[in-house]
């Protein structure tokens, strides 16, 4: 996984709550056995006017001009601003794969669904929880003629606006450490092989019926 470094990016405002992972990446694209190439089908049903299927040339499909991702102001966005309970529904990791493949590295919302939130960190995406009031304020600025840009500083745990105002955010220390250093969870866990084997041996004698 790539290290998460400080960057400045355009904010795309997706003004909906309860955006589910079926909307983020519809089921027909889950048939792939790869983990890349989902970006062109991110929000497929909202983004295009036709019905999307795997294998289509997405560059020739009719875009929905009313969908925010197609707004010229937000092209190249690296930050998605959205409403509460983002990423609810299916556990499909294809959702963060699609967001990441599109180029989004940060999602800001008042709350996230648990499995999605967890999946983001495994893929170099930082989900940031801000209070409703702050999210509302960012929505109002990002609707301006000129798109909102934010600088995301994970080490310092704050966002900065162009005028210098900063917004602090919370992040779990372990997840922060993994993102900043691009660490692979499996490698970290395998440092504790001795502990796992000891647990397993004890468990095998206490509850042998789990090991048949």
């Amino acid at each position, binding site marked *: 996984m790539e290290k998460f470094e400080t960057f400045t990016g355009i904010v795309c405002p997706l003004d909906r709550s309860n955006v589910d992972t*079926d909307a983020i990446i519809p089921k027909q694209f889950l048939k792939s*056995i790869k983990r890349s190439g989902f970006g062109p089908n991110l929000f497929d049903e909202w983004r295009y006017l036709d019905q999307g299927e795997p294998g289509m040339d997405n560059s020739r499909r009719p875009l929905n001009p009313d969908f925010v991702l197609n707004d010229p102001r937000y092209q190249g966005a690296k930050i998605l601003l959205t*409403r509460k309970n983002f990423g609810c529904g299916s556990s499909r*990791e294809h959702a963060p794969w699609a967001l990441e493949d599109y180029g989004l590295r940060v999602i800001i919302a008042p709350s996230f669904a648990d499995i999605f939130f967890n999946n983001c960190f495994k893929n170099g995406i930082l989900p940031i929880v801000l209070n409703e009031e702050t999210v509302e304020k960012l929505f109002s600025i990002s609707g301006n003629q000129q798109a909102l840009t934010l600088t995301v500083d994970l080490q310092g745990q704050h966002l900065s606006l162009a005028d210098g105002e900063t917004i602090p955010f919370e992040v779990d220390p372990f997840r922060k450490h993994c993102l900043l250093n691009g660490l692979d969870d499996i490698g970290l866990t395998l440092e504790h092989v001795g502990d796992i084997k000891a647990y397993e041996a004890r468990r095998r004698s206490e509850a042998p019926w789990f090991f048949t």
Partner: protein
Amino acid sequence: MSAKTLYDKLWESHVVRTDENGTALIYIDRHLVHEVTSPQAFEGLRLAGRKPWRVSANLATPDHNVPTTERSGGVSTIVDPISRTQVETLDENCNSFGIPEFKMLDPRQGIVHVVGPEQGATLPGMTVVCGDSHTSTHGAMGALAFGIGTSEVEHVLATQCLIQKKSKAMQIRVDGPVAPGVTAKDIVLAIIGEIGTAGGTGYAIEFAGQAISDLSIEGRLTLCNMAIEAGARAGFVAVDEKTIDYVKGRPYAPSDENWEQAVANWRTLHSDEGAEFDKVLVLDGSVIKPQVTWGTSPEMVVSIDQSVPDPAGEADDVKAGGMRRALEYMGLEAGTPMEMIRLDRVFIGSCTNSRIEDLRAAAEVAKGRRVADSIKQALVVPGSGLVKAQAEAEGLDEVFIEAGFEWREPGCSMCLAMNADRLQPGERCASTSNRNFEGRQGQGGRTHLVSPAMAAAAAVAGHFIDVGKLD
């Protein structure tokens, strides 16, 4: 010793180690695998030169992509080449890594969340995970069961563990008894209507109270299945005699020599008297009526005797906007009585409601009646090959076929339309599945979630109707 919740007991018995900041490594007893969320995990193992930690902890079966029509030719009968490749890839990965798998033609194949309990492969006291959010289902056995992403599937395969933080504990107590005709599906939809789809976020939910203990194990599987629709990764019910009776004699259940010891352990799997929860919610089960969703989120739900709600009556602007968008997508007018809503298709199946008791409940309604002429299709998709065989032994297939339903092969089917079973744009469906999201059952499709009996009643009437009112 202080009083513990069931969640404390399940969690503490699986902690391998804990960091100073509270991040824990927990041991996973059972890993269920299907074809959609596993290929990239197996590929990751292969690229890193890793092997599964303990192959016997895994159990795989294809379910999302399998056709439900005639398929005796096996994988080659999957018409869509991309779907076929995904099922073939699961077979290849299980073969090469030595993972036990019920392949497409195995009579034990089925929806992974139906197969696990049916085989006794998910047991009380276990940690159970799967790359599928509906893994919460297995909590009905008194297990800690939750869905994971593909990176975590790879992590479990490689280490038999997951890196987790302990959730907060919530108890949802539903006092009972419930009225006749009110099912586990109605109870869980009523709970979601009450707390919302994010109400359980950050919590592990223990369902308790008379309405819950009155449920059969299959009813509890339906209930826990939809804990995730309330935002909780895990939902569970304490072990009682029903749980123990259910497990006894199943293929993966403890053998005779271990049985007594296992049962003694399982009898401790309940919250202690006086245990404290971070949140407690109490519902009066006696007032719950059959539920029908009207919108594009499971929290958009009303009783069958109510009408489609009006966004104008909603004080929260963001919520009112969501309601308006849902009404537009669903093609519904506020104020329409639910019983006036006419349907195009009916789907009885999914990991929520495809077990034998679900099929019996639907067949009881269908028996001696006919699917309305206005219904284009009414599908019955059993949850596993063994459920199908049991239903056929009881003659339920004939009841359905005589009534005009289609009797299919087991799989996820129209719950998420990854196979050929799907809604056309604008079509409206009464479905016993778990999600009414936009496009879930096919792009532009409109889903209303109901219980099996209510789905069968809707098929017969051509519109929603309280099953108790059917002639």
